[in-house]
């Protein structure tokens, strides 16, 4: 069995978790293995149909008053309990903030290997092979993990969503036996960043700015552009962040986030090696830069040599027209 942990935020299963279910269905098919999903804490069983439709027949709902709010110690105990019972060959989850916090604790509890932020999974010679970027994508490493289960976190926006087919399934409710005394860290408050519901790691389109933007106030131009586009977020280069123009949450690159959107729009970003490492996994790259020699133009599928402040206003108008059609 491949067991996929589903992350629920504000009552909804995250899209990135459903991508992991989709990949689980493809690989379990090759392995001749089953696919199941698990969710912890409060969960509306009506959402289970989406998970069954992607190929996970069984959805384990782990319940306990101590799972109402996410904690790595509570969730790891609950999942370790389930793993001891159902003995999966692999446990996967999305490489989100929660997944990256939870998976290593669970791996230590189960004393098994973990592959972080995988971008490819294959079943070959009777075992699972995990491919993951190292050096923020300057190299790709393929590993196998000894022992069972193997744990992996899968990077959002990389694995294709499966085709949903109405399928029968069951939700198996399980009371998780937790030692609440073991939970020594608890979330007290979630502070939402205004106008930034979507993180760059989850966005399908990233509108990114660099030193060429010349100041914090000009990031407003990029926010306006992002607001026109579906599932778009604003990104930034390290020099824009280090200049204090935008929060580090938005930084793309080797000391920021590695991203893989469908479309990466780079405005006034020269393309230092650290930045290119973080965004070369984008499916389509478009860059606007004054300098015809800028490295970003060597990796862009479409480049404009020009002043971004002159290009942005007509670009916004053209985009509005195109999107209205």
């Amino acid at each position, binding site marked *: 069995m491949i067991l996929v942990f589903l992350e629920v935020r504000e009552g909804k299963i995250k899209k990135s978790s459903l991508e992991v279910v989709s990949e689980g269905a493809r690989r379990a098919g090759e392995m001749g293995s089953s696919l199941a999903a698990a969710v912890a804490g409060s969960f509306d069983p009506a959402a289970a149909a989406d998970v069954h439709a992607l190929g996970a027949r069984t959805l384990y709902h782990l319940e306990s008053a101590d799972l109402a709010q996410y904690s*790595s110690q509570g969730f*790891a105990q609950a999942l370790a309990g389930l793993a001891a019972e159902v003995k999966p060959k692999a446990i996967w989850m999305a490489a989100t*903030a929660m997944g*990256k916090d939870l998976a*290593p*604790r669970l*791996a*230590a509890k189960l004393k098994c290997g973990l592959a*972080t*932020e995988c971008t490819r999974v294959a079943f070959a010679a009777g075992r699972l092979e995990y491919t*993951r970027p*190292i050096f923020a*994508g*300057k*190299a*790709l490493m*393929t*590993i*196998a993990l000894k*022992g069972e289960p193997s744990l992996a976190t899968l990077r959002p926006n990389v694995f294709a969503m499966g085709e949903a087919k109405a399928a029968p399934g069951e939700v198996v409710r399980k009371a998780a036996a937790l030692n609440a005394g073991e*939970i*020594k*860290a*608890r*979330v*007290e*408050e*979630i*502070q939402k960043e205004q106008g930034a*519901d*979507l*993180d760059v*790691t989850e966005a399908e389109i990233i509108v990114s700015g660099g030193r060429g933007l010349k100041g914090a106030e000009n990031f407003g131009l990029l926010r306006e552009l992002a607001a026109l586009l579906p599932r778009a977020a604003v990104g930034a280069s390290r020099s824009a962040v280090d200049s204090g123009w935008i929060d*580090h949450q938005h930084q793309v690159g*080797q000391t*920021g986030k*590695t991203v893989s959107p469908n*479309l990466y729009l780079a405005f006034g970003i020269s393309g230092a*090696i650290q930045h290119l490492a973080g965004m*070369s996994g984008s499916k*389509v*790259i*478009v860059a606007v830069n004054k300098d*015809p020699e800028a490295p970003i*133009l*060597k990796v862009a*599928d*479409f*480049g*404009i040599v020009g*002043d971004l402040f*002159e*290009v942005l206003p*007509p*670009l916004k*108008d*053209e*985009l509005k*027209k*195109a999107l209205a059609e």
Partner: protein
Amino acid sequence: MNIFAFVKRVPDTESRIRIQDGGKSVAEDGLNFVISPYDEYAVEEALRLKEAKGGKVTAVALGPEEALVVLRKCLAMGADEAVLIKDEAADSYDGLRTATILAAYLKAKVGPFDLLLFGKQSVGADNAQVPSMIAEILGLPQVNVVTKLEVGDGAGTAVREIEGAREKVGFALPAVISAQKGLNEPRYETLRGIMAAKKKTIPVLTVGELGLSAEETASRVEVLRIEIPSARKAGKVVTGPAADTARQFVEFLRNDAKVI
């Protein structure tokens, strides 16, 4: 407070990575090595807590003899002590192996402590595993990717980054914290600090003297291959009046890239 900051020696972020050993490892010759950037935030935070509350800061590295340079930097920044746990094994990429060794060191060689500080990930392996794993092994709480930390008597609060929001997490001490950029601005070493650091002795332990079994120090990770991703090809580059290039841009998005 008794604080430990864990640091790793890694190639700097300007490095071009080359593969050797039939695609099984990263070539280290010609690379410039530095303290992993996120670890600097951990060291800085340890020093600030010590300056505010008193106590001791110990910097610990696991790695080859060459990692002494990174520990020397921590001493120059103001750490009281530094320890190298010598491990000649090439980077195993197995976070649990590293966490097991560091936990064994703390159990065997160290008395009570308050905080274990890490970078949120090493730059290179990009695993982001060791902090949570050592927390689990030692039965401690963890807060990862922290941009703000406050520590009081026996407890603290930390703010961590999640998607589009920040989580405020309350935790009991002792605890494991991993640092994100933004937590602080690491100080530069002073000349006086560098001179003082030169005079300090850095004890060197070996993995062998920590009482771990061969099974516990074996890697669970088998590296099958390391590849350099194929370079992207430059596409179309246009120039001209902004109105024209903007129109071509949108046509490209719609007709060629098919993303809108």
